């Protein structure tokens, strides 16, 4: 109840003797508002928990049963393994050529070892 509204709507004679009571009620209302703020903290926490629970419920009740019955992981692993094997084969084809960078580096290493022996 708003004190100002009551004061405006009623004449001063009607309110005689009630001023102190109205003052007290207005104070109580303002204190209650302060208390509600503390409750607000719990409300925020509960709403955040509600979001968390919704996500968990969606995970365990909706998404995971689908994943369980239509797991794609092993097929993706197989596909990626085949792709990697293809890439490795292509790499070896290039690297086994006599003029490939690998062969050149190995030749240089080999030659450098024997050059040292020839000098001595």
């Amino acid at each position, binding site marked *: 109840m708003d004190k100002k509204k009551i004061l405006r709507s009623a004449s001063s004679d009607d309110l005689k003797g009630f001023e102190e009571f109205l003052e007290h009620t207005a104070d109580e209302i303002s204190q209650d508002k302060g208390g*509600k703020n*503390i*409750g607000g*903290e*719990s*409300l925020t*926490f*509960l*709403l*955040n*928990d*509600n979001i968390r*629970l*919704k996500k*968990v*419920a969606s*995970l*365990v*009740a909706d998404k*995971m*049963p689908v*994943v*369980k019955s239509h*797991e794609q*992981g*092993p097929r*993706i*692993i197989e596909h*990626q*393994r085949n*792709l*990697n094997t293809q*890439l*490795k084969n*292509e*790499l070896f084809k*290039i*690297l086994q050529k006599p*003029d*490939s*960078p690998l062969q050149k580096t190995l030749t240089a290493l080999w030659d450098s070892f024997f050059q040292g022996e020839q000098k001595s």
Partner: protein
Amino acid sequence: MNLPIYQIINVKNADLIEIAKLLHEDMNLRRPIVFVVKTLSLDEQREVIGVIGNWFDTHLASWRYPYPVFFVSDLAEAVGFIPIVAEMSALPKFYNQKDTKVTVKESQVLDRNRLLQQEIKNADPHQMAEVVREYGINHKKIWYLVQEGAFYSELLKRLRAKEKVDG
């Protein structure tokens, strides 16, 4: 109706009958649970952690959902699969709330949360946690294989570029 804040259970002895009295399937349905085993000797702490972990396994109950279970223990090394912290202050702060009187609006949210908690419980979260674990392992494998493939592709790209320059 209570807020879903930590329920602290002080485990005072390692007696199996006493531990069994503390455990029931709906224990983490409404709020997270913290077992404080610090008053026990290190061997007893290890034993209690093992027993409670096994209990969740044998009863096909989930220690993760709807609310998690923690241990507060002096054991630094990992024992079992349930998370262990050294101090109460190391627990997730999300559930560290004041236990205030619930307002009408809050009790409405709590009612909605109760339905969700029950929905999670009914979805067999223990089995689903296993599915999540397998899904995670598979996708970790995929990640490593994709990394390997990206390395080969990069190598091939560089070698072909060099061949073009030389050729």
